[in-house]
């Protein structure tokens, strides 16, 4: 097997094991639209990175984390529903990213690979980045599992019981931002939310505990990456969308299971 397909496989698996458990929180806390907004703002990160001539990964991660903090901290204080605010920011940042990149006329950017991912172009240094972030996210989730679950059940009750809700919320937002920053390479900014939400939703139908759901979501994500890559390899279809399609197919299959 050629190197690039092995790298692609490793990258996809590395992302899927982080998006699985984190995606569960996205589903439980109804943050899907939030994930979408963050993902869209990644384009702005690319534009800023090129403009300021800094490492693109750093620029993307930086912009995403700033957006996550702004949404998490300022979003609470603005007299707009979160839904409306996200609707404005999500497409506003996507448009801003596209316009900024068009203004950088002397730079050629493969826009399609940003929008839909380019997993076959993953390099060894990308792999290091993906696995460091996946490990960081999993360690944080393991440490903060109980506080995060308690906060998900009821934030005020958790706060009264002594949990630092602001801290927990920010950590969760930053983790989401980081995972989106690396998942972008795999499926692109337009499809990332599917990688967070769909395996978690599928796993729900087979799980009796939150831990099971997180584990199954990671497993379903990994399976989708493997099968999506295979499909893309044999049928010569775009890889990112093929992976996402596999997660959706898995979800549809799970619907066949009675009662959940």
């Amino acid at each position: 097997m050629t190197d690039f397909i092995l790298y692609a496989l490793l990258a996809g698996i590395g992302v899927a094991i982080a998006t699985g458990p984190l995606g569960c929180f996205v589903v439980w806390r109804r943050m899907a639209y939030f994930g979408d907004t963050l993902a869209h703002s990644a384009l702005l990160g690319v534009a800023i990175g090129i403009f300021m001539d800094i490492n693109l990964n750093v620029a993307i991660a930086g912009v995403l984390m700033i957006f996550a903090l702004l949404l998490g901290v300022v979003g609470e204080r603005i007299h707009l529903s979160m839904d409306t605010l996200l609707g404005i920011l999500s497409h506003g940042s996507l448009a801003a990213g596209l316009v900024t990149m068009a203004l950088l006329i002397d730079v050629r950017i493969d826009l399609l690979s940003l929008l839909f991912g380019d997993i076959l172009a993953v390099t060894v240094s990308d792999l290091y980045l993906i696995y460091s972030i996946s490990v960081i996210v999993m360690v944080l989730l393991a440490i903060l599992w109980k506080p995060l679950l308690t906060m998900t059940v009821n934030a005020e009750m958790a706060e009264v019981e002594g949990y630092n809700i602001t801290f927990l919320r920010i950590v969760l937002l930053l983790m989401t931002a980081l995972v989106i920053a690396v998942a972008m390479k795999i499926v692109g900014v337009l499809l990332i939310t599917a990688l967070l939400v769909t395996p978690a939703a599928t796993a729900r139908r087979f799980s009796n505990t939150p831990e099971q759901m997180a584990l199954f979501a990671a497993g379903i994500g990994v399976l989708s990456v493997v099968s999506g890559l295979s499909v893309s390899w044999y049928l010569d279809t775009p890889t990112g969308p093929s992976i996402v399609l596999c997660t959706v197919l898995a979800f549809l299959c799970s619907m066949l299971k009675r009662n959940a």
Partner: protein
Amino acid sequence: MPNQIIELNNISKRFGNRSVLENVSMRLEQGQITTLIGPNGAGKSTLVRIVLGLIQADLGSIYKSGPMRMGYMPQKITIDPTLPLTTLRFLQLAESQASKCRSALVTMEVDYLADTPIQALSGGEMQRALLARAILRHPTFLVLDEPVQGVDLNGQSALYNTISRLVEKLNCGILMVSHDLHLVMSATDHVICLNQHICCMGRPEHVQQHPGYTDIFGHMTAVYSHSHDHHHTLQGQVVGSEHTHSSECEHD
């Protein structure tokens, strides 16, 4: 150990230019049930949230006699159906030992709910699950926001009885929000009638006669000025009749 207290001194709170609380002073004591009553918009929830430290008062101070464990039972808990969480697992978020959680459920007479998804619990069952959680956490003070909402009349008095038994068991202080004095009469030591300021406070029989109370609630005849002489299981069967009247019980 002496009883812990929480003292609120001249608490005021505004939201925008609307004054919600004016000069509210009160005292909560461990081992006592204090009930906060008042009409809608009286500032009950705001006051509760100030006691809990969830929001800050604009003016006034709060004194706590020492470090204490607070417990909070929100009016309603909405958990997304995608979270697979049984009642037992919900309790295990507070106490990891399953056996302790099960015995807390038994104490609250809802052990049959252990494997039920938390989202499927009725209002009364949820309150009992939350009380079980309180047993596990041993709070110094427990704050209950309208604990009987969405519970039928019989269930309400049963729940109040359970709450007063719980105070003895845990030796905690309880601050409870209610909008109906008659039902809580038998289960409370101290009543505070709030309508942005404190209209009156004292023992329930005293408050009921107070002009400040009757101004707000009118002269209503008591639905319950006595305790139920038996109680029901959650399924409605009558159990036991070992009830004895307390000295405060004034009916004949």
